[in-house]
């Protein structure tokens, strides 16, 4: 393993995590939040891979590799489940946003859609 510097990848991983974290807090739309979680996960994977590459020895450390492999599959499944849940939220409330705080209620076009959907689907 050549003596390379992986700090750039570590920093990029941290930056990806924080970008996702910020979006998760700021965005109200559930699809955007799910995507934000995926971006956060990608940052974690990048840090793991960079750490694996830093270890001495003939090959990169296989343990973080195996963890990332596990993590990718789990993250795909979590995304699938989250999308199904988001669709249920849409079917139940007519909105693709969570929350009953004034922020969600005040957002421009959410409320009329909600009342329409409730009329259309009484027994959801």
């Amino acid at each position, binding site marked *: 393993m050549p003596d390379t510097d992986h700090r750039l990848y570590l*920093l990029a991983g941290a930056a990806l995590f*924080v970008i996702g974290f910020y979006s998760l807090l700021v965005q109200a739309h559930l699809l955007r939040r799910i995507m934000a979680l995926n971006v956060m996960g990608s940052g974690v994977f990048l840090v793991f891979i960079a750490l694996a590459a830093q270890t*001495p020895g003939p090959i*990169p450390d296989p343990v973080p590799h*195996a963890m990332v492999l596990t993590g990718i599959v789990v993250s795909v499944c979590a995304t699938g489940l989250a999308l*199904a849940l988001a*669709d249920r939220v849409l079917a139940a409330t007519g909105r693709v946003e969570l929350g009953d705080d004034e922020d969600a209620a005040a957002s421009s076009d959410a409320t009329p859609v909600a009342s329409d959907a409730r009329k259309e689907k009484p027994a959801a």
Partner: protein
Amino acid sequence: MMRRLLLGILSLALLAALSWAVLSLPAKPTGLTEASLAKLPESGVTNPVTAVLLNYRGYDTLLEVGVLLLAIVGVWSLRRGEWPANDLRDRPLLQSLLRVVLPLLMLAAGYLLWIGGFAPGGAFQGGALLGGALVLAMLGGRGRRVLNHERLLRAGLVLGALVFAAVCAVTMLLTGGLLQYPPGSGGTWIMAIESAALISIGLTLGLLYLGGRPTDTTPPSPPAHPTKHA
């Protein structure tokens, strides 16, 4: 607006903290490379990543297969998914392409599974290919014809978890340790788990795309378990 600004400042602070954290990690961490390589001849496979996944840390992978199953069970209980419409007659080119590509993808999935024992590859990579093949088949309008057997789908989805659990039980009986394979036969156990996991992973990933329990074609709302009065 004020809230966004505050959250932005908080995120920047988090970025600073995380950057400091990753940079302050040792530049030459000891890692587990040597430990995993030292035991590799006993693990039954020669690909160290596969050895970690299914021998040293098989417990992780067992739980992961459980997570996959939970995810698809959750999606199936939340929604119903409709097979994409079968309009292949309008797209002869896609039909010809699928006829060639689908078998190739199946073959490649099997190849990745087999090669995982001694080179990069394994059940997860093969499962991802299999899932992609299923998505392609669904997009091409073949889902209803190929996949519309819910009992078979259910069996395939739980196969990985069942075989994994069975291997756990048998190895415990044989050696007394959870997933502690009898000496010399690790490769066989690993391949048995991986073959079953390949099918379950591929089916799970493919059916997650459908986004719900497949809707039956014949009656609009049949009972979940048709009872046969004997």
